[in-house]
Structure formats: structure tokens, C-alpha cells
């Protein structure tokens, strides 16, 4: 039973065909890593899941609702789908605690006490309980991204989406964020993760999806994908990604 299902999805930006006939299923509890060269359409693909990017053609079923159908309550659906951005996108004018409690209070109509209690628990989980009164600009990139993950989890989502969550971070901060994501992956939540962190993929992903020029070229277990990529383009891509230069 898949929780996310792309059916012949196409997406154009004006003349630019960004997603080409994408069909893809992600099962409940599955951790899927999406990789591919820059500009291949990874961000666009993951953003279509919660309609941050509307699609031109096809269907996307998320938690049994077609997100491309205008009758779908997209706000309610988004509340159930967490999204972590490359650039964190914390609300700069709100404290860490308020960043996390805003949506639970406004969308889930939780009481402030309940929301804050939950927020503190989540901050403990990402190791930042002591920063609850800080403002985003007072945190390092790694800390901000961990707060952003806690913010997403505060809505108790059924799915978590990550769009290159570590690529804007200084190298020494990547580990702390990946650790939080690994813990999360082991908790059984469905995750779709755009990343080039192959270590993460090997360790916790159930499947790797390789995207190139808007097409899904390969889908395989990490072990298969890394050891025996089928297409030349995937081979080429892996060579670049795994080269010491990178």
C-alpha cells in the first residue's frame, strides 16, 4: 500500500519540460533517497508532493488524496507532510520555540501549553533544548536545520520530505543533521530525501531513485545502485559524487 504515488506526472516551466512521465510509488514507512545531477528536477519532484509546485499533467496521490485535484484540501494535506528545505527557512522573527509551535497552534488548534511541551520534547530529541529561546540568526546552520526538522515533526506528519537538507551546511555540521535524520528513519516514518549523502543512503534508505533530465532512470536498493548502476548516466553521476574531489 503506497502512501505516495506518482502517475505519469509531467511538469513544464513554460517551454522547459522538467518532469517527464514520472511514475513512482513510495510505501508507508519507506525511506527513499532521490539523487541525480543538478538541474535534473529533484527539487521540483519533491515539491510537487505537497503542491508547493503544481504539476502540469498526471496524478499524485498522497495519503489517498490526489493533490492535483482542486477539491483536495491542500492545507490539511500539507499539515500531514513535513518539509525540510535546503536553506532551513526558519521564521527569523520568531524564537526557536515559536517557530516550532506556530503551525500546531494555528493549524492544529493546539493550546500553547501543549504545543510548547511538545516542542521542548522535540528540541530534546534534536539536542537543542537549551536553545529554545534563541532566534534563528543566533544559531549555526546545523542547529537551524535541526530546529527546522523539529518544526516539521511538531505537526506529527505521516511523511517527511527533505530537499538537500545538508548541502547548504559547512562540512563539520553535516554529521549532526544526518544523525537526526537517521534516528528519524529508524522510527518508521515515511521519508523522501533528496540528497547526495551516499553514506546516509547506504545506511538507512530502502531504495534509491536516480533522476536525470526529469526522468526516473533507475530505482534500486542502495546496495544494488552503488555497486551495479545500470545506466551510463548513473555510472557517470556516481563517479562524480564519490570522487575524492567532491
Amino acid at each position, binding site marked *: 500500500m503506497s502512501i505516495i504515488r506518482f502517475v505519469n506526472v509531467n511538469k513544464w516551466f513554460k517551454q522547459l519540460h522538467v518532469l517527464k512521465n514520472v511514475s513512482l510509488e513510495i510505501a508507508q514507512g519507506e525511506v527513499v533517497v532521490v539523487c541525480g545531477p543538478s538541474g535534473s528536477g529533484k527539487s521540483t519532484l519533491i515539491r510537487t508532493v505537497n503542491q508547493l509546485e503544481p504539476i502540469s499533467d498526471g496524478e499524485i496521490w498522497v495519503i489517498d488524496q490526489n493533490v492535483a485535484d482542486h477539491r483536495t484540501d491542500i492545507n490539511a494535506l500539507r499539515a500531514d507532510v513535513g518539509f525540510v528545505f535546503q536553506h532551513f527557512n526558519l*521564521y527569523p*522573527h520568531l524564537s526557536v520555540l515559536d517557530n516550532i509551535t506556530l503551525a500546531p497552534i494555528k493549524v492544529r488548534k493546539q493550546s500553547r501549553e501543549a504545543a510548547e511541551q511538545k516542542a521542548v520534547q522535540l528540541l530534546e530529541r534534536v539536542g537543542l533544548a537549551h536553545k529554545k529561546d534563541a*532566534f534563528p540568526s543566533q544559531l549555526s546552520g546545523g542547529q537551524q536545520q535541526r530546529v527546522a526538522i523539529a518544526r516539521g515533526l511538531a505537526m506529527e506528519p505521516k511523511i517527511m520530505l527533505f530537499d538537500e537538507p545538508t548541502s547548504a551546511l559547512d562540512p563539520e555540521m553535516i554529521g549532526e543533521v544526518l544523525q537526526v535524520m537517521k534516528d528519524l528513519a529508524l522510527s518508521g516514518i515515511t521519508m523522501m530525501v533528496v540528497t547526495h549523502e551516499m553514506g546516509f543512503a547506504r545506511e538507512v534508505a530502502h531504495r534509491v531513485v536516480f533522476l536525470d533530465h526529469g526522468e526516473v532512470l533507475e530505482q534500486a536498493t542502495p546496495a544494488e545502485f552503488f555497486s551495479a548502476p545500470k545506466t551510463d548516466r548513473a555510472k557517470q553521476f556516481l563517479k562524480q559524487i564519490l570522487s575524492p574531489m567532491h
Partner: protein
Amino acid sequence: MSQYQWDWLVIFENVTDTDEFYYQWLISGLGWTLLIALSAWVIALILGTIIGTARTLPNKFVAGIATAYVELFRNIPLIVQLFMWFFVLPEMVPTNIGNWMKQDMPHPGIITSIIGLGLFTAARVAEQIRTGILALPRGQKNAGLALGLTLAQTYRHVLLPMAFRVVIPPLTSEFMSIFKNSAVAYSITATELFFQMKQITGDYKPANQIEVVTIVGLIYILVAFSANRIMTFIERRVQVPGYISGGK
């Protein structure tokens, strides 16, 4: 040539044939100036925020109306707008309403000035707010929407609070300008500070005019300076710790 005889006490002189004093006229004028400018500012902030926000909405129709409003009110000189509200509008509405506006409306010059100046300044505030919203990182809007906030909630809780902080400096200059612009209200019978200056320096008395004009100028400077301090105070109060405005 004989030197000009400065006489700063001229404003404390009695108005010929009355029991009034010129300084009383100035104080009364200042009172109306403050009332007009501050009331118009409230209108400008509320309406300007709505219109500036509307210009950034995905709905083309709403954004188009907002754009039309801004272009219309920003490009017609304020004095013409006030003239139209005061003299033209009453002739365009049904006669009984027009007559009410002309004869029974309390303080018609003041109220029309407040509304006219408010609508004019709203167009200018709207542009600042729009610029402020567009200056925010694109991800901010998505960060609100992605968590299930409605577009309205995203504006209310995510975009506008930051947009306001970003635009406080340009808003400060709009706020200072509104006192200066309120002087145009004299043209539709509002007896505000600039009117009183013209009244005193007209036929009333030769009363040393240069002093009166200088004093009124100083009052405007003082008012604008106070407006600046108030905005700076607000800017400090709402400053986000560690956030460098315009950053990222």
C-alpha cells in the same frame, strides 16, 4: 537699506480687534495638523498593508486592482485629489448626500483631508509593504504553506511581520512626510498649521511674517523629528536579535 527688525515675540501679540493671540492660532493649527496626519496615517497603514499585500497575491485579478489603486493614487497630485474629494465628489453623488457633505457634515475640511491624505499615503505605504514582502527570501512563503498554514495565515504570521521590520526605514520617511503633506489640507478649508501661517502672514497684520514662517517651519521640523524618533524607537523594540536586515 534698513535692516530687518527681528521680533520673535510677535506670535505672543494680540490679534487686532479680538481677544485672541497669534500663538493660540498656531497651537490650534498644530492640533489639527497632528489630528489630520495621525488619523490619515492609521488609514494609510491599514489600507496600505492590505493593498501592498494584494499586489503580491497569486490572484491576478486582485493584484491588478491593487496595482491600479497604487498607480491612480500615487500619480495624481495630492492637492488635486483633495480638491476632487471636496469639490467634485459632492456633485457626483445623489443630491441629498451631496448637500449633506456640503452643509451638515461636521468639520468637512478636516474629515475630507484625513480620508484624502490617508488614501494617498496608503498607495505609497502599499509600495513599501510590497517591496518588503518581495525582499523576503522566497522560501519564507513556502515554509509557511508547507506546514499547512493557509495563505492568509502565512502572510499574517510569517511574511508581514518580517516585511514590516524590513520596511521600517522607508516607512519612517513616509510617516515624516505625512505631516508635511498634511499642509495641503489648507486648500480645502482645514484650519491646520499651514493655514494659520498663511492667515497670520496675510492681511491680518504685517506681524513680522518672516518670524512666523520660521517658527512654523521649526514646528514642522520638530514634528518630523519626533515622528522619526518614534519610528526609531519602534524599530529598536521589534528588532530581531542577531538579524541583519536585508540579509539572506
